[in-house]
């Protein structure tokens, strides 16, 4: 087995002449909890969009667990073992909590018999039970039938993580999962991610909250203006001159976290 679960090589992307991702390479070690940080606009979300195939890349290579997925269509990439959450909540507002999580199972249920199985007519079927259990496991067992549009922000944020988890990814990409959560919710999220990680799933987390990053992650990659400027441990990151330079004068929580 390969030591890294994800290898990004010389990734490049520009939007209308503006180079947003410039020659970025890094690998994510299997089983690690890697953070991808950087000031606003550094290109973190774009990296996720390129990995998941939202946009085609201009140049470079993406290898997921030994398989080159650079040109795999977006709707097939999840079947290679990668799923994600979104910086701005992207749950399906008209679906119930359980139904949203069942969408996350889709990659495992794409055969015709699975597609024609009446999930909604048999409430105790294995898919629905699995979804309900996954929610309960994440401390969200309270809202199975509710339409998500009416749920609190922090709850929706965690449902996104559960939805991504039930596709059983090898690597889970989380885009600012703790943003907007209160302390209790952040602690619950961290506990959830610890368990996800303990079960063998690799985490790649974009996060501004450095406290959260230090608690959770064992490896950090820093982007600035679309370039990788640092890679190392959370302990080293604060002392790196290039990183300090990048964050100087930015309103990111990095500065505050540093002081604390």
């Amino acid at each position: 087995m390969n030591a890294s679960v994800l290898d990004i090589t010389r990734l490049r992307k520009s939007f209308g002449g503006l180079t947003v991702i410039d020659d970025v390479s890094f690998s994510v070690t299997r089983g690690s909890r890697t953070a991808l940080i950087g000031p606003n606009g550094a290109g973190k979300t774009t990296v996720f969009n390129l990995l998941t195939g939202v946009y085609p890349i201009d140049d470079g290579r993406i290898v997921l667990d030994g398989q080159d997925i650079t040109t795999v269509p977006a709707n097939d990439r999840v079947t290679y073992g990668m799923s994600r959450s979104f910086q701005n909540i992207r749950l399906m507002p008209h679906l119930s909590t359980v139904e949203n999580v069942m969408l996350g199972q889709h990659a495992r249920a794409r055969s015709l018999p699975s597609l024609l199985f009446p999930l909604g007519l048999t409430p105790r079927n294995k898919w629905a039970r699995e979804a309900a259990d996954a929610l309960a496991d994440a401390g969200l067992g309270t809202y199975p039938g509710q339409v998500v549009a009416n749920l609190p922000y922090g709850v929706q944020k965690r449902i996104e993580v559960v939805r991504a988890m039930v596709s059983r990814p090898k690597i889970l990409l989380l885009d600012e999962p703790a943003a907007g959560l209160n302390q209790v919710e952040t602690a619950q999220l961290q506990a959830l991610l610890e368990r996800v990680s303990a079960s063998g799933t690799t985490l790649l987390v974009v996060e501004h909250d450095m406290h959260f990053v230090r608690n959770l992650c064992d490896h950090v990659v820093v982007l600035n203006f679309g370039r990788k400027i640092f890679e190392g441990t959370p302990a080293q990151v604060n002392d790196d001159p290039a990183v300090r330079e990048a964050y100087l004068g930015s309103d990111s929580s990095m500065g505050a976290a540093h002081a604390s």
Partner: protein
Amino acid sequence: MSGYLESQLIILCLNVIFAYGIFLPAASGQLNLGAAGFITLGAYSSAWLNASMGGLGLPMFFSIPLAMLFCAFVAFVISFPILRTRGVYMVLATFAFAEVVSGFVINLDFLGGAAGMPVDDHANINVVLPVALGVVLFSFYFMATRLGLTFRSIHDDESVATLFGVNVRSAKVAAFTIGAALTSLGGALYGHHYNYIETQTFNVLLSIYILLYVLLGGTQTAWGPLVGAAFFTAIPELLRQVSKETGEQWIADTRFIFFGAIIVLMMVVRPEGLVTRTMVERLSRRDKGDPPAKTPAAGEVSS
């Protein structure tokens, strides 16, 4: 059953079938104003397959399914250009398709042209009602499947559905095609019930009404088209009856003003349709007498 009630029930059944045919694509976010086109295709192809003179002379129980297959094929083929459009452009594209079908049929002499076409076999209420029930049951089943879940996901957020493995294009083609097959089934039954068809009956006004049933009934659950079609079939008829009973002719004369006002009112009061997902959830929970939710886990705090 009185002849009047029976005739009303037939109209209701046909409207319900039409509505489900437009609902399936609508549930995945497609606005299809081409109902009349598929109704025309279904009615004429079944009539021709069934016609003993100048047609194939197949019994209606073969001609109707064959007509549906034919329409599904046509829908499958045209779905590729049509599904490149979305929103109001899709409305226009499907409308244009229906106009093309109408213009085509009216110029085919072997289908009677502008004079219309008599239809041989008769489908009475004993055929129409069970078929309508079958369509309702099929649609409920279909929307409960994982495929139905993908339709509803596509309706809400196509790109996220894609990232979770949904082949959005195929799902949309399936919704459009299956919907067209159901719509054409309604058209075929229409022909076999009234035993006479002409393209003018299947005009854009019919397409508009059907799309209205669906949008006003609600596209989030399979109840929507049933409630929408029932509601909007009943209201003009009720107003007519009230006028007859009270002898107030003005009510009958102005009933479409009432009707229009009700539509406007509904769009304001219930923009997501009469029946929403939340409403069904609330009602079904009360019916079962279930507690509203499990007790919150310890430490569960939601801001």
